[in-house]
């Protein structure tokens, strides 16, 4: 019992078309449908189906290097000439080559001297590397032992592709003994409403005719589709936001363009501080309005009324008016505190900041920073350490330790380090208590505990990125393939 489509496929095969792709193209059918017909034709003895799996090999990065430059053991062999004392071969990189050299029996150690044993002909593995570099890829033409050896050294990778080959079983004309019935592919709405469906048998009676319900090969893959989704980096940012919200922090935001006043002066950064120089900060050619600065000026020049010495010199409002792209989110934080000087305040923000840095794999001129502050009566540096421990633990960094640090606007300051398997202790962010010189001019009377960290650094650790640019200039394939279930 064959449908019209099956017949068409059979016809195509009898005319010499032997693979599903070309038949699908010829008949304007889906490849999956052709394969399903061919399978049915096979079951009924009209067509012979030969499935084959071909293994295709390709060079890895390392393999490519060796294919071009020669295997390290070959190069070492060339390098030792008639022989070389082992004492000269202490470099750790030589160790691996040495192992292979001896394993292959190309050289031996005699009385502490590494000497070639014979003429070391080109091995199968080297032949394969050469042919792969030249473009040969199939297992049928390559030596199996050589392939296995290269694979174990991680120099080649393999992938399998399936292919199908069809032939008719009878050379005489087609259709002499073929029984044709109507067949149903897609189910229509009308069939659902008015058809008579048998419980288990594959037949449908519809408009007084009997149809065979086509069986599909459910094991076949269909076209790939990709869901729309959040960026993995945004997923990480949202995780961090959730942690902060859970811990009771209010989210704050601020302008990208800031006055030097809020970005630097309000944080007691002296006007000649190196971080304020043109080579580190993006300046604009414009001036901003700044608030009443008398107290800030006094604090910089002579320490105000908090018993500080201040920086001395003359604080100039025109320097404070210069606009910059915010170099950190702390300017936004101090402005928020100036507007909310009464305790308790717990606030955080995750936003983009700008540094005048050349782009490379670990630096981008803009990146996200997380910042959190707690201002309340009777909070202490020890509380800051407690918050940091809690925060990092929620981020999945269970082990945290604290080292003295230095930041211009906090005292005391601390650099937290987290323990990461395989990397050891990694510095992650900075923290401290805002100096009195920072808080007093804005009428903030209680200690402000503050910490911050580069979110893109965390992304590199959590997403295993080697190149930060991937976050911003994304490879769409990477976005498609990074699952939403990735552990962040």
């Amino acid at each position: 019992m064959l449908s019209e489509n099956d017949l068409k496929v059979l016809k195509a095969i009898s005319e010499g078309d032997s693979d599903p792709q070309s038949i699908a193209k010829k008949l304007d059918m889906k490849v999956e449908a052709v394969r399903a017909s061919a399978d049915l034709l096979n079951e009924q003895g009209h067509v012979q189906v030969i499935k084959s799996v071909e293994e295709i090999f390709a060079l890895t990065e390392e393999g490519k290097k060796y294919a071009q430059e020669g295997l390290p053991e070959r190069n070492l062999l060339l390098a030792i000439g008639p022989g070389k004392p082992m004492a000269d071969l202490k470099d750790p990189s030589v160790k691996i080559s040495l192992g292979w050299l001896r394993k292959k029996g190309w050289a031996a150690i005699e009385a502490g001297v590494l000497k070639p044993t014979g003429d070391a002909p080109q091995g199968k593995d080297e032949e394969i590397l050469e042919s792969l570099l030249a473009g040969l890829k199939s297992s049928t033409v390559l030596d199996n032992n050589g392939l296995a050896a290269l694979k174990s050294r991680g120099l080649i990778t393999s992938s399998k592709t399936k292919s199908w080959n069809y032939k008719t079983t009878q050379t005489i004309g087609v259709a002499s003994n073929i029984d044709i019935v109507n067949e149903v592919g897609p189910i229509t709405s009308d069939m659902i409403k008015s058809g008579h469906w048998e419980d288990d048998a594959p037949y449908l009676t519809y408009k007084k005719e009997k149809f065979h319900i086509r069986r599909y090969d459910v094991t076949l893959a269909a076209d790939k589709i990709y869901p729309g989704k959040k960026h993995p980096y945004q997923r990480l940012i949202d995780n961090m936001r959730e942690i902060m919200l859970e811990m009771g922090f209010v989210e704050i935001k601020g302008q990208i363009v800031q006055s030097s006043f809020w970005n630097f002066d309000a944080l007691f950064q002296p006007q000649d501080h190196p971080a304020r120089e043109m080579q580190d900060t993006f300046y604009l050619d414009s001036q901003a309005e700044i608030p009443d600065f008398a107290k800030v000026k006094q604090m910089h020049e002579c320490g105000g009324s908090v018993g500080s010495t201040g920086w001395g010199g003359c604080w100039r409002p025109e320097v404070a008016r210069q606009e910059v792209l915010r170099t950190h989110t702390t300017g936004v934080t101090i402005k928020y505190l100036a507007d909310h000087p009464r305790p308790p305040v717990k606030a955080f923000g995750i936003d983009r900041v700008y540094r005048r840095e050349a782009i490379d794999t670990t630096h981008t001129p803009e990146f996200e920073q997380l910042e959190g502050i707690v201002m309340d009566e009777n909070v202490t540096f020890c509380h800051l350490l407690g918050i940091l421990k809690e925060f990092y633990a929620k981020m999945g960094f269970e082990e945290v330790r604290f080292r003295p640090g230095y930041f211009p606007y906090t005292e005391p300051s601390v650099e937290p380090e987290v323990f990461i398997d395989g990397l050891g202790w990694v510095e992650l962010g900075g923290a401290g208590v805002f100096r009195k010189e920072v808080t007093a001019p804005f009428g903030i009377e209680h200690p402000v505990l503050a910490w911050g960290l580069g979110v893109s650094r965390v992304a590199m650790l959590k997403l295993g990125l080697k190149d930060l640019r991937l976050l911003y200039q994304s490879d769409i394939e990477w976005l498609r393939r990074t699952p939403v279930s990735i552990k962040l």
Partner: protein
Amino acid sequence: MPVVRLYYEDMERLIGASRETIMSRLAMMGADIGKRAEKDHVDVEFFPDRPDLYSAEGVARAMQGFLGIKTGLVEYAVEKGPVVLQVEESVKSVRPLIGCAIVRGLEFTSEAIESLMGLQEDLHWGLGRNRRKVAIGVHDISRVTPPFRYFGEDPGRKFVPLDFTEEMTMQEMLHKHPKGKDYGHILEGCERYPLIVDSLDQVLSFPPIINGDLTSVTEDTRDLFIDVTGTDPMVYKALNIVVTSLAERGGRVESVLVKRSEGDFLSPNLEPSLWEVHADEANKLIGFNLTGTELAECLQRMRFGAQAIGGDLVRVSAPAYRADIMHSWDIFEDAAKAFGYEKLKAELPRTVTVGRAHPAEVRKAEIREVMSGLGYLETMPFTLTNEKVHFEWMRRSADEAVARATHVLHPISELHTILRTSLLSCLLEILALNQHHPLPQRIFAVGDVVVDKKTRMHLATASIHSGASFSEIRSVIDAVLGELDISPEIIPSQDGALMPGRGADLVLDGRRIGCFGELHPLVLRAFGLEQPIVALELKWGEL
């Protein structure tokens, strides 16, 4: 940050502790230890607030206290010497401040000279703002005859600068001597240049540029004259740091009488600064619980003079070489370091507050949900871009649009000269990078743009494939507007980025809040794109 090279042998001798003990505690005193410890030395970064640690001697002095080997204030004796330096009026408009000192009886090893030179350079960077604020000169005093004179000299004056064999004028040095090229800009516009000479008119120093060759320091030098000049009282701190570090090497310090019209003084002044602090305040800040006596003990280990004087009051003498003690909290931080950060009890504060997400972030999350539902992938492009891509390629080069963008003054590359005023060009750049991947590709970004210096929030989407059509994007914009509950008027667009007759503007209350449609093929071509794209951009909020 300045990197100080510490030779283990030198450090063991100076500190009196084993290499292992020193290395295990160094970081906890406040330092970044490089991962690469060498056989005989390690390079350590110290923070910019502690220039007194920029030499092996300074580190040893601090470490002795931190390890409890020698604690309390180091008293440096200053012998009153006969040498006089006269400051003349002519230099005061150029480089008014000078401090100087003599240190005798030194025995220089090559390591000691390396440490001294390194210290000088690091101080120029850390305190001196590259010599503008503070510049240091070190001289072999046996080659010259006091008294000395510091004055403003005619730039035509000739002498032999350090590392040269021939005389040249000071003016020439600014162009020919490597140091002149590096620092000459400091003297820009000055009619007279600062100079220090001896009684025979021989040149010691041309601050802040270069010393004379005559007084250069060698391993045979025993007695040093040190001058520190500049524009800020930090001059005296820098002098104290150099002098005390030499005293740690066994030098005897001798004062110089500096004569000037506003009053004479003896230099250096190594007297500590005096503070009175309360243990109670330290406890409130740090969260430990120390008595006055315990606080004093901690501070002594940081080489302060400290004495509990009843109640919780502690009298503190801060060493003359400390440049960072501005406020009592600076002293308390040192106490916490001495106590040990690792011994502080980390605990959560009891502050009770309720978390609240920012409305803009809530909105962004809603938009992401809608766009994901429509099958779009999120991207997060840079906010920095350039006029060429942003305006020219987008066929949006009207002067007004360009003028409303934020231009940075000193871009680091041609790629990043302005902040984006819209998102669409950023999406097109991403699509251009991804042409080797299967189509259709549908991407979106929701993020900040800056117009007239103000941050606004936009959404942009782009869909590229052979069948991309106006009706596709019309469906998307209707879905988005419906979900966000915005009902703008839709009118034909004049946007150069869109194909005429296939682009629309979104207008709300008389203002254009967005656009959508088929992109102009000339835009696509500018980005190197070869398939049709339909796109939309919508302004949905501002800060």
